[in-house]
């Protein structure tokens, strides 16, 4: 599961190259290995090859929406258990998407994403969540330190 040199690997998917660039540096600064894509069409194949420990996914990307990509991830035999963090610029995204995914869980049995973050993200909260999810034993000590650049 883990990447080279023992780092957790995170897959970042967003159609905005700048946001991908930002998350890549942010996560690398905080001890993660990052793979990324701005093209949702090739994500499933890429995720299958890279086997990330966590996926950061933008919802409301053009052409293939993040929602259908999310469904594909959850229905993929290899990827379905990987934690997914949904990031979106949609107005009231956290509340709106929770309801949407609740319905999806009811109708298709697809489990909801592990967390929602609205753009512009609060980097400290995002890192806190990722640290808690991927490094449950370390996150208490690291939280304050990892966010210094953002603050």
């Amino acid at each position, binding site marked *: 599961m883990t990447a080279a040199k023992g780092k957790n690997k995170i897959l970042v998917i967003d*159609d*905005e*190259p*700048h*946001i991908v*660039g*930002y*998350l890549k*540096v*942010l996560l690398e*600064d905080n001890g993660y290995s990052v793979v990324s894509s*701005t093209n949702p069409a090739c994500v499933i194949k890429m995720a299958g090859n890279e086997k990330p420990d966590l996926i950061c996914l933008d919802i*409301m*990307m*053009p*052409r293939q929406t993040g929602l259908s990509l999310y469904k594909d991830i959850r229905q993929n035999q290899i990827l379905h258990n990987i934690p997914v963090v949904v990031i979106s*610029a*949609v*107005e009231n995204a956290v509340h709106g998407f929770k309801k949407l995914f609740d319905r999806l869980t009811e109708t298709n049995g697809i489990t909801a994403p592990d967390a929602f973050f*609205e*753009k*512009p*993200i609060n*980097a400290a909260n995002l890192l806190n969540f990722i640290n808690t999810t991927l490094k449950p034993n370390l996150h208490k000590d690291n939280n304050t330190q990892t966010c210094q*650049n*953002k603050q």
Partner: protein
Amino acid sequence: MPKQAVVNKLRTELFNQVPMSIAVIDCDNRIVIANKEFEKTYGDWKGKMCHEAYKHSAQICAGCKAKKTFESGKVFSSKEQGYNKDGKLNFYLVRYFPLFDDDGRVAFVVEMSADITEQVAIENEYKLIFDNVPCYITVIDRDFRVVKANGFFNDKFSHQGKTYCYEMYKNGNQPCEDCVAREVFKTGRKQRGLQTGIDKDGTESHYMTTVAPLLFDKGQVNLAIEISQDISEMMHLETQLEQAMHEKFEAERLAAVGQTIAGLSHTIKNILMGLEGGMYVVNSGLKRKDDGLVKQGWQMLESDISRISTIVKEFLSFAKGTKPNFTMADPVQIANDVIALFKVVCEQSGIELKGSFPMPVDKAYLDPEGIHTALTNLISNAIDACLVSDNKKLCVTLFCYEEDGAIVFRIKDNGCGMDYDTKQKIFTNFFTTKGSGQGTGLGLLMTRKIVSQHRGKIEVNTTEGEGSEFVIKFLRKQLPKPAE
């Protein structure tokens, strides 16, 4: 045959063959002789009084002209109405002249009458039309003096003491500068023109005037007839319609601004995150002493600031409702300019860009800058659609031609096309499929606005995977007019 016999025979024949009724009456108004035409029209006359034969009346006519001829020996004429032998009303024109005896006294009076029943019917019909047709009709002479006017005109414009056309129609004191009749008197040809007058109540009225020559004399028009159709109500309705359209457009614009703000916030959130990200990456680069990372962060900041600038400019341009600048412009020239603009980009991207102008298109009253913007938006979209397409030979064509009285611009590409959902949303605010910081979502909205300002139509035909076609049509007769 002796000469006198010939003369006598001629007199008899003339008396009977002339196409007029002739009766000779004595001083008691009794008919002493009548010709065949008289008998044919009024029946048996023998022993009858003049008024019995002509009018089926036992009483002598009031103001009898024959009596006056007997008294004065002078010739008189009158227009009469009576009944023919079948009891049918008829009209006739009578000339009364005396036959003197050797002593110079009037012995008999000859009544020579011509049947004018048909003319009177036509005249009545004409008068009825003249007075009741819902148009203002006047007959004017070369000095613009009104010599005849119909009831409709008199009710609306006739002033006591006013004699000239321009006085009555416009309350003016000299012939109008844009006088339509002047041209008719000058050229002898029918003319038309839109006029604005003031009726006798002081209300402004608008009418379309047609002036035609009525009477020629020695090669010049002496009388002309002016027929004016009141279009005040129509113009009033048109103004109301314009106002309603303007209000509707404003309401749509305000609604669009509201929706746009919602859409804008989505875009701004992405930009904000990009800016925050840029700052983070710069800081991270400085901390790591990594120039490459600093450069990357700086580029992120520059790009997002530039994006904010573009969006704010386009948003303001859309929101403030730029007024179009209409002028006579060549549609093909505008299309050519747009083609030239994209030539290099297309060459570099491997897209064939073609202009198809199969015929010259007459100049029209357009907003050239607006049309240029609309075509630029559509060509730019077509190129973008090609760039994400798998089709091997990519092509964008701009057609410009005239069809059924409409100027047509058609933009066709064989790019990625659109699915049903996308097609439904393309003219809505801030809808964009260009995720990577490229589109503002305002292009097609602005295009539709420009088309609407020209009272035109825009349609889209598209097939996913095969391409799209946008068709803009401007009906010439619906384009704004220079005077508006």
